């Protein structure tokens, strides 16, 4: 990695920009631009107190994050190897800027010039990110337990009330998934959990590609073509 304090446009960033820009399944039409990398790098330094790596406790110190109900999952996503595009598994203890950037790049907005195929690629990528956040034990399915955990986290700011309802909400949601993806089931059959395919099907009308974006990553999207 090395010191990355150099100005935008420097060759140090080019490598990173390529890594974060190209989704595995689509040609490189769009990526995080140099300016954005520079801004993010500045923020990275600020968070890590000018160290090379970020640890969980760095994230936990972000004041605005403190009242986010799904804080643990968000932080977890940054340390999850599955989100690094390297087909890794498990989690790491500390991340460098590259990993930070790769995770961030999941929140890029889609470009207007995308073909239908590329759009689908972006969509899968974003949904995979969400899926990985839910699928904590990395077995390819979101089980009922895991889903309950998600909803519980989501409602964790609303006190006892939320905790109690969370379970039934998750059950209802799971029931819905099962009925959408399986159709008919015999009473003795068992639905193990949501696979990624079911997950895709489930959020078919959700238009994730136009929702899971951060305006921050929207500056000058065309800089890094090629």
């Amino acid at each position: 990695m090395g010191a990355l304090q150099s100005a935008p446009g420097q060759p140090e960033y080019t490598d990173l920009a390529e890594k974060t820009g190209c989704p595995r399944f689509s040609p490189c039409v769009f990526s995080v631009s140099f300016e954005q990398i520079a801004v993010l790098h500045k923020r990275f330094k600020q968070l890590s107190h000018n160290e090379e790596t970020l640890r969980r406790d760095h994230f936990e110190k972000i004041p605005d994050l403190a009242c986010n109900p799904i804080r643990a999952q968000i932080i977890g996503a940054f340390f999850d190897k599955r989100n690094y595009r390297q087909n890794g598994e498990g989690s790491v203890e500390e991340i460098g800027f590259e990993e930070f950037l790769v995770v961030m790049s999941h929140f890029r907005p889609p470009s207007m010039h995308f073909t239908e195929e590329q759009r689908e690629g972006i969509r899968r990528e974003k949904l995979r990110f969400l899926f990985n956040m839910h699928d904590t034990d990395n077995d390819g399915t979101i089980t009922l337990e895991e889903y309950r955990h998600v909803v519980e986290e989501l409602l964790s700011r609303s006190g006892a009330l939320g905790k109690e309802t969370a379970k039934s909400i998750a059950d209802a949601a799971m029931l819905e998934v099962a009925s959408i993806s399986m159709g008919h089931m015999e009473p003795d059959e068992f639905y193990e959990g949501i696979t990624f395919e079911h997950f895709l099907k489930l959020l078919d009308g959700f238009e994730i590609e136009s929702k899971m974006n951060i305006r921050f990553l929207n500056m000058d999207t065309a800089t890094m073509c090629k």
Partner: protein
Amino acid sequence: MRCVRRAASPQGQYQSSAAASPDDSARPAGSGRSLPGRGLLLLTVLVLLEGTVFRLGAASTPDVSGHDTKDHHKATAIGHNSTKKAFPVLDLDYGHIQTPFEISLWVLLASLMKLGFHLIPRLSGIVPESCLLIVVGLLVGGLIKIAGEKVPPVLDSRLFFLCLLPPIILDAGYFLPIRPFMENLGTILIFAVVGTLWNAFFIGGLLYAVCQIQTGNSSELNGLGLLPCLLFGSIISAVDPVAVLAVFEEIHINELLHILVFGESLLNDAVTVVLYHLFEEYSGVGTVTVMDGFLGIISFLVVALGGVLVGAIYGILAAFTSRFTSHTRVIEPLFVFVYSYIAYLSAEMFHLSGIMALIACGAVMRPYVEANISHKSHTTIKYFLKMWSSVSETLIFIFLGVATVDGPHFWNWTFVTVTVILCLVARVIGVVGLTYIINKFRIVKLTTKDQFIIAYGGLRGAIAFSLGFLLKEDHFPERNMFLTAIITVIFFTVFVQGMTIKPLVELLAVKKKQEAKRSINEEIHTQFLDHLLTGIEDICGHYGHHHWKDKLNRFNKKYVKKCLIAGERSKEPQLIAFYHKMEMKQAIQLVESGGGVKMPSAMPSTVSMQNIQPKKLPPPKTVERALPQLPKGREEEIRKILRSNLQRTRQRLHSYNRHTLVADPYEDGFDKFILKKQKIIELENKIKEMNNYLTVPAAPTDSPTMSRARLASDPQAFSVKPDSDSVPIIQVDLASPQSPDTVNVMDEFRRADQEENQGLMMRCPRGPSEPKKSEDTEGARDQQKLMRCLSDPGPSADEDEDEPFLP
């Protein structure tokens, strides 16, 4: 503002009313037959309307007072057989009822027309309703004119702005999809403000230029100054919400485009109001200084923000009021309407933007009001708003047609043609240019197709006409020419664009609205994503959209909701609220379907809880999933429905022989159920699981009889009258789909008696008076409770297809 009145010529009107009244009563029956039949009806209506003036109700009081003495006679005369002079047995006093009668006739005409269009197969698929209504208006106006009478000034600006417009705007504001609206607010504002300004100045300026060039031949255009041109431009440039709604509701375009065009049409009101007043003010003077322009900008801010502020204040007041209405549920809906209307009037009083006030009022009050009021009140509000707005809309289009025939027209080919062309050109340039700028800031870019639809959807409508109508002829000698041009533009946009937009949407394959209902999973992920994006923004250290939204939400939850929402629901997170709504809806659907015939659509399959429950811990699910999760109030609500409609009735039936029911009139469908026996057994299992899922202890499935009865009869029937003192207890017929609460209260009081009563009750033929059954053992205490219960019937099984529950 003007309100033209005319002294009624009594003789002729008596004649026509007498002739028409028998036909009038027959009209509803014949309304749906065929075109000639409807034409006849139309004639009848025309005879009635002939030579009459449509006025505001308030204006007619002096007229009525003249007939007061006659009324006294009439009251005493009936029933006596006496000489003609002493007591006229039958007296005609049309003037007495004229105004309300004519209003009713217009409304009736409008409603029948609307009804008729949907009865003609395929017609409503080709031609938008608004076009048909204008044609009807043209016909009506033409017939009035042929009859040689003065055409009533139906689209009087006063009537339009005070009576016809508010319901439509309130409907739009109250049911405004807040989320997409707020997400696209920037775009909408740019289109509404900059776009409208651009249109006004472009059209006005170029019109002036054309008028200057044309000096040679057409003398009328010679005297046209710059300011009248700009005034005309500002009138004609605003996209009309009524026309847009009428057309866009029919083409089912995707949410983004809909909210962009519709939002623009709503928010450009402030611009139009300011430009209109500004140019009207200065066209007399003839010059505008920079200072005036500056004042205009300030005035715009005042008008727009003032309107929003007035609306928000009344919205909060309405929400606060609704906090205390839990004991008088019946007037709950009224608060919503009255506060909104007062907001509108207050804003109009100061020449603020009434439309923006209404929008703000509706949008602000809705989340709180909905949490406070009962489900029945919510349904009432929804239906009333929809009814009013659709009648208003219909009337507006009909009146537009009538006014076209009526108006003193001055047709100038150059002026009209240039106006129409400029309107189109300005719109296209405006949209394309603004989109180019906006796209630099938008995450989701507007494609070329989107731009086309936005430009093409810029329909003009009755607001422009009314504003033109308001111009005073002595200030603006060109008023008639303006009106003609405005009407032409309206007709062009509504007919040409309105009729072709649907095929064009199909042709371009613009994304349509997704009809799918919001599922619980989508709601979970919406929430999840909100928090995720907020979190990521925080990590980036970037205070963006999500960050502030999160802050606002937290503020709302912490302070505002506590003040404005009564009871525990104020603490309910959105997801839980959504879940409860969904849960209740399914409970209602389940009840409605009688627990067997059709399953709620959200659960189309046979998957049940035991399929997804981890195998390790199968049995305790009923126990652990039972009721403690729900807050008390909601739990009761859901429980009531289920208990009264499923469990109780089932228990009753189970305690007694099915075969005694064969004589029951509701038993007709029994055979079918025997045929479906296999299915029912299967469903029984499912119901068990459904109940489980609905967090109510499992109950066996409904009997076929019950479901039959419930399906066959009108769920709205509410025949219990708690006013007879001699019968303190009202026994509700169990087979009738009474309000669940009503049944429920009875259950609570007389569990012991039930078992004996059932057989009898089930056999009762149902009639309006039948459900009353006297019970001597119970006292006035129960009566009281029952009364209260009836005043707030609570949720009932009258859910409809368009999911009023879900936001």
